[in-house]
Every structure is written in structure tokens, then in C-alpha cells.
């Protein structure tokens, strides 16, 4: 019996995923409430990207169900309501910033004005006519973020968007994520930097393909009797079955 998708932005029930012959996610369940900024924290190789790919409908699933925005149906309508930013910038390197964003705008039925607005949002107005190959890594990843923002998705899923960015830029991105959450967008942001926990409304701690903890930073630190996310993670990782 499939559980009703309910009102959550994301509802994962007993999700199992195999990749390359091994089980990456094993009967994982979680719910992400709407309109919140949720951090998916865990080390490299913990299954964050696989979970993210499952949520956006890019991953072959062995068993279990994933519902987004109240539906199990990953049709064009649902896909148009999800924004997905892959870990490596996935835009056309030989096109300009503007050409990239106009194309991705066209795919979700947004107009050229929407593309221009996004260029300003991600702070690339001066680089709008520059081809992506000529941009720095940080600028290229902002083009990739912009490509997911066009069309105002209700659910924005970002795979390690702040990795390798300078601290100033990282701060700016978190400010942007906060603004989007305030405007009603649900955001799931993965990171292996535990310090970023303080930026989020809720946290999902992930390790070895399982969810270690699911709650606010305060709830998790209180539960573990620790002071910060890093210590809480270590405490949870040390004590099996504590989640």
C-alpha cells in the first residue's frame, strides 16, 4: 500500500537504491515540510547525491516510493515545479550566460525577462554576454544555479552548491537561499561542511546511506547533549541505532 503523499514537499518511504552492484540507500524514509530550508549534511560517499537524484526523478530506484509536492507522478508538470542543481555546473560551456538562461527559461515556459531577472539574482549582469568557458568556477556554478531558478520552482534541490566557493560568495548564496525560503520555496541543500548547519531551518544528517538525524539544529544538539553540528554528528555516528 503506497502511503498518501500528503502535504509534504518531499516524502520518501522505504527507499532502496542500488548503484554499481552495492546498496547505496537502504530502506530510507524521510519527510521534508514545505517552505523550509533543509540542509542535507554528511560526508562524501554517504549517499547524498543518490538521495537527491532520487528526489528529482533522475535515479533508478530499486524499491520504495518518493513523492514530491504531493504527487508520485513525475510527469512534465511535476518536473516543471522542481529546480535541480547538479554538483558540477551543468550548463553549456560554449554558450553565453544569457543564451544558457534563455534556453533553460524556454524549457519551463518562462520568457526572456525572467531569464534577465535571474541573471541579476545570481549576480552575473556584467558577465551576461560572456561564454561560460571564460567564467571562473564560482561564476559557472552560479549560471548552473540560475538555470534551476528560472520558472520559480516550488522545490529547489541543490547538490553541494557551496563547495569550493570563497567564503564571501558562500555567504551570499546562503542569503539568497534564505530569501527564496521566505518567499515560500522549499529548499534541500546538501553539503559536507557541518558549519553550514546554522544556516538551515532543519537538518538531515546522513551517513553510509542512512539518515542519522532529522530535526532542527537545536533538537539534534539537545538530543545528543552537544554544542554544535559537528559534535552532534560525531556522537550520532559513534552510537549505532541512535537515530
Amino acid at each position: 500500500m503506497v502511503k498518501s503523499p500528503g502535504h509534504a514537499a518531499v516524502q520518501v518511504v522505504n527507499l532502496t537504491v542500488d548503484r554499481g552492484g552495492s546498496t547505496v540507500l537502504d530502506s530510507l524514509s524521510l519527510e521534508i515540510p514545505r517552505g523550509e530550508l533543509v540542509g542535507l549534511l554528511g560526508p562524501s560517499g554517504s549517499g547524498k547525491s543518490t538521495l537527491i537524484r532520487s528526489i528529482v526523478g533522475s535515479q533508478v530506484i530499486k524499491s520504495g516510493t518518493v513523492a514530491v509536492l504531493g504527487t508520485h507522478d513525475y510527469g512534465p508538470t511535476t518536473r516543471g515545479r522542481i529546480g535541480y542543481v547538479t554538483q558540477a555546473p551543468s550548463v553549456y560551456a560554449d554558450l553565453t550566460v544569457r543564451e544558457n538562461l534563455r534556453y533553460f527559461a524556454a524549457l519551463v515556459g518562462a520568457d526572456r525577462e525572467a531569464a534577465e531577472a535571474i541573471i541579476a539574482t545570481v549576480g552575473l549582469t556584467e558577465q551576461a554576454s560572456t561564454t561560460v568557458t571564460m567564467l571562473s568556477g564560482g561564476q559557472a556554478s552560479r549560471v548552473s544555479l540560475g538555470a534551476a531558478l528560472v520558472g520559480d520552482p516550488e522545490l529547489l534541490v541543490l547538490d553541494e552548491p557551496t563547495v569550493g566557493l570563497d567564503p564571501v560568495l558562500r555567504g551570499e548564496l546562503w542569503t539568497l537561499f534564505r530569501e527564496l525560503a521566505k518567499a515560500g520555496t522549499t529548499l534541500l541543500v546538501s553539503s559536507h561542511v557541518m558549519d553550514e548547519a546554522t544556516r538551515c531551518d532543519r537538518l538531515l544528517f546522513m551517513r553510509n546511506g542512512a539518515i542519522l538525524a532529522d530535526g532542527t539544529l537545536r533538537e539534534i544538539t539537545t538530543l545528543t547533549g552537544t554544542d554544535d553540528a559537528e559534535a552532534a554528528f560525531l556522537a550520532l555516528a559513534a552510537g549505532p541505532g541512535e537515530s
Partner: protein
Amino acid sequence: MTPRLTIATAARVLRQLRRDRRTIALLLMLPLLLLTLLWWMFIDTTGPSGEPIFDPLGARLMGLFPMLLMFVITSVTTLRERTSGTMERLMASPTGKADVVLGYALAFGIVASVQALVLVGFTVGVLDLDIQGATWALALIIVLDGLLGTALGLAASSLATTEFQAVQMMPAVILPQLLLSGLFLARNQMPRVLEVFSDVLPLSYAIDAINHLLVGDTGEIWPQVAVLTGFIVGALALGVATLRRRTP
């Protein structure tokens, strides 16, 4: 499939190609240079009864160049789309699988047609290629060869996971067709098994059509045109069918 998304994708592919001037130059000039080489090679040679050799040979070989080039360009470009992560993004978006494949087919189909028309114009106008049949019919077959290369490239690229594999798809898919197409030995003189095999290879029909044109039977090419069109549509359908929204 949504025409708006297909056209947006085709426009994007053409925009990318426009940035790559060297590829455009190679696409347009290379077939002309190769045909010129062939023409020069046979400039002093005639057949047993004194007829020029370049005319039949040039007409039969001509279609091969657009087919080869478009196959390689198409399969490498779509592979690049997958390795750069943009295909995963497209497949996670509302874009249909057919929009992606047909967008590519439309963009490269336009390129292939321009390439084929330039080639036919040059070969007939400058190298003086003379066939009994109509020139427009020759142009039609050469355009279909280019479109076939595009469609086969789209279908084959889904089987390749690396650039090395993609490049080797060309000899694997095109060269057997070349050998068995009737270019080296009339198909009805081959061992029966190979003749039957050549019946299911699209290039055989292109060569059959050219053979009709060489003897002036312009009206006889329509069955071959229909078969070639069928192969093009079939290869595109295969390209759509093998594209996956979800990957392991």
C-alpha cells in the same frame, strides 16, 4: 513532444555550432576537397569504352561524406551533452525525450542539408559531374544520406558511454554499409547471405537510387527514397526510445 521545446533545443544546438567556426568550415569544405581529390585522380582515365570514370564513381561516393561527417558530429555532440551533465538536467526538466532528440535532428538536419546541397552544387557545377538523371533527384538522395548519418549518430550515441566508444561507432555502423552497399560489387553478385544482409542496410538503397539516376531512371528512385526515409524515422525513434529519464 512539444514543438516549442523542440525548436528551442534546435536553436540552442545551432547557436552552439555557430560559435565553432572551424567545425562549420570542416563540415562544408571537407566533402568538396575529397570529391575534388577523386575527380583529379581520374582526370586522365576512362572506362573500357572511353566513358569517364569520375561520373559514376563520384555520384555513388558523394553521399558517403555527408553521412560520415554528420554521424561523427552528431554522436560526439550528444555524448558531450551526457558527459557534461546537461542531459541529466534536461531529463529532470519538463522537456520530453522526443524534444531533445528531434531538436538535435532538426538542427543537424538543417546543417546536413546545407552541406549536401553545397556538395552537389559544387560537384555538378564545378567538377562537371554528369549523370543521365535529374540533378534535383541526386541532391535529394545526398540530402537523405546526410540526414541518415544524423539519425544513425543520434541512435548510436546512446550505446556509447565514452568518447572513444562514440568515435568507434562510426566504423562499426558505417563501414559495413559501405562494403555491402554495392559500391565494390553489385549486390546481386554477392554471396546470398551478404546480399540479404545488404537488403537491411540503408546505404544500399542510396546506392540503388544513384544507380537509377546514372542510367536516367529518375522516376524509379521513389521506393528507395521511401526506404531511406523509413530508416531515418526508425533511427530517430530508436534514439528517443533509448534515452532514459532515470539512470542507474
